[in-house]
C-alpha cells in the first residue's frame, strides 16, 4: 500500500455507502474473504497490509486503482479487485474502516 498520497485529492463525490440489499452480516462475510491474507477483521500479521482502521476512501481508491490497472507494482490485487463490484468494495472498505487496529 505505497503511493497512497497522490490520489487522495482525487477523492470527491464517489458514493461510499453500502449496497442496500446487503445486510451487516453479509458485508462482514464479504470482508472476511480478504482475511486469509489481510488478517481476521483486517488485522494482518507481518509483511501484509493491515486494513483495520484504514479510512474507507483510502481503501476504495486503492481498490479502484487496482481494478483500473493503475498500480504498476501490483502482483495479485489487480486480478482480485476485478472480481468485486464497486458497491461491494465500498461496503468492505466501510467495514474495515470501522474495525479496531
Amino acid at each position, binding site marked *: 500500500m505505497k503511493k497512497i498520497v497522490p490520489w487522495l485529492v482525487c477523492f470527491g463525490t464517489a458514493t461510499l455507502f453500502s449496497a442496500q440489499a446487503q445486510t451487516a*452480516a453479509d458485508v462482514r*462475510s464479504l470482508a472476511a*474473504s480478504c*482475511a486469509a491474507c489481510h488478517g481476521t477483521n483486517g488485522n494482518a500479521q507481518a509483511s*501484509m497490509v493491515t486494513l483495520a482502521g484504514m479510512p474507507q476512501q483510502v481503501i476504495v481508491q486503492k481498490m479502484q486503482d487496482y481494478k483500473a490497472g493503475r498500480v504498476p507494482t501490483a502482483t*495479485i490485487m489487480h486480478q482480485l479487485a476485478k472480481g468485486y463490484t464497486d458497491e461491494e468494495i465500498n461496503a468492505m472498505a466501510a467495514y474495515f474502516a470501522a474495525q479496531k487496529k
Partner: protein
Amino acid sequence: MQRRHLLQTGSALGVMGWMSGCASSSGQGPKVVVIGAGYAGATAAKYIRMWSDYGIQVTLVEPNPAFVSCPLSNLVLGGSKRMADITSPYDNLVRRHGVKWVQDRATSIDVNKRLVQLAGGSALPYDRLIVSPGVDFMWDSLPGMKQASAQDKVLHAWKGGPQTLALRQQLEALPDGGVFAMSIPLAPYRCPPGPYERACQVASYFSQYKPKSKVLILDANDDVTSKGALFKKAWAERYAGMIEYRPKHQLVDVDAASGTLKFEFNDDLKANVLNVIPPMRAGDIAFKAGLATANQRWCEVDFLTFESKAAPNVHVLGDAIQIAPAMPKSGHMANQHGKTCAAAVVALLTGQSVNAAPVYNNTCYSFVSAKEVVHVSSVHRYDADKKTMLTVPGSGGLSAAANELEGVYAFAWAQNIWADTLA
C-alpha cells in the same frame, strides 16, 4: 424441545440476547460439532464462535496434537523449511475463542439421532454438524498399495505430517545419481499445482546436493493441471536436464518391494524413491456416513450454506466437497468455505436470513525454488440461476513470471491464513 421451539419462534434479537446471556455457562445454547481442524474446519469453528457473539457452543473433534500445514510442506522436502515452521498449535482456538477441542477421532455419524460417535467411546450430540475431513486415498485402485507395509515404504506425503518428514528422509538417503519418481492422479485431487511445485523443490535440493540425480514426473493427466507454462519454464530454465515430465501416465499398480510403478499403457518404471500421490476422495468419515454422493468420491453441497445434499443439518467443507466449476481444492478455498458456512450456520441457528450472494477468492502460491514463487488467483461468485459458484469473468490470473517479491508475499500469506484459521 423447549430450546428448539425458542429457536424457531423467537425473534432473532431475542434469541441472540438469550444466547449471549448463556455464553459463559456450559450446556446452554445451540450445539455445533466440527469434525476435522484443517483449513476449513478450524476456520468454521473460530468464526461460528466470533459471529454468534460466543453464544453457539462449538466442539472441534481433531485427533492430531497440532495443525501441520499442507501448503509450504513441499519446502520441507526441498530443505528450506522444517516441520516446526509449518506447525501451529490449536491452543488459541480454545483459549481465545472458547472452542471445545476434543482430541479424538470421529468414527461414525448418526444423522437421525444427530450424534457423532468418537473412537474414545463417547458420543457428541449436535444441532448442526460440520464435516471437514479433508481427503483419504482410494487404495483399491492400486492393489499393491493396500498393504500397510507398502504404504510405509511408498509414501504419498499428501497430508502435512509424518509422511512429509519421512519423504524428506528418503530424499536425504537417495544416492547422487538416483531417481525420484512421482505419480500424479487424474484431476480432481487436493492442491492441483502441488505436485509440480514438489518437483521443483526436490530438484532444488538435488541441484545443490545431488546434481546427478533426476526427478521424473508421471502424470495421469494430459498436461500440467495448474500454472502449466510457469512450471514448464522453471523446469526448462532452472532445472534443465534434471526434471522430466511425462503426461498421460495412468498408474494402475505399484510393486513396493521392487520399487516399480505399473501403468495402463506405458512400460513399468523403477526408481530409487517412489512418491505415489494416489487417487483420492472425501475423507473416510464423510464416505462412511454416505455423504460422498458424487461418484462415491465427493460430497455434494448447497453452496449458500455448505449443507450436505445427502443429510439435513450436516455441512461439508474443504477438499471433501464436489467442487463448483474452476474451484480448486486448496487451503485458501477451504478457509473461505469455513467462513461462508460459519455465517450460514449462525444465521440458521438464530433465525436470520442466509447470505444469498456469497463472494470469495482463491490465492495460491507455488515455490519454484526456495524463494521464488508463481501464483494463480480467482474470484468466485454465487450464481442464483445455476445454484453454484462461478468465477467472475475478467478477474483472477497468474504471475507474469516467477519472482522473489511474491515469495515474500507467500510467506506472509501463510502467517496470515494460519492466524485467521487458528488464532
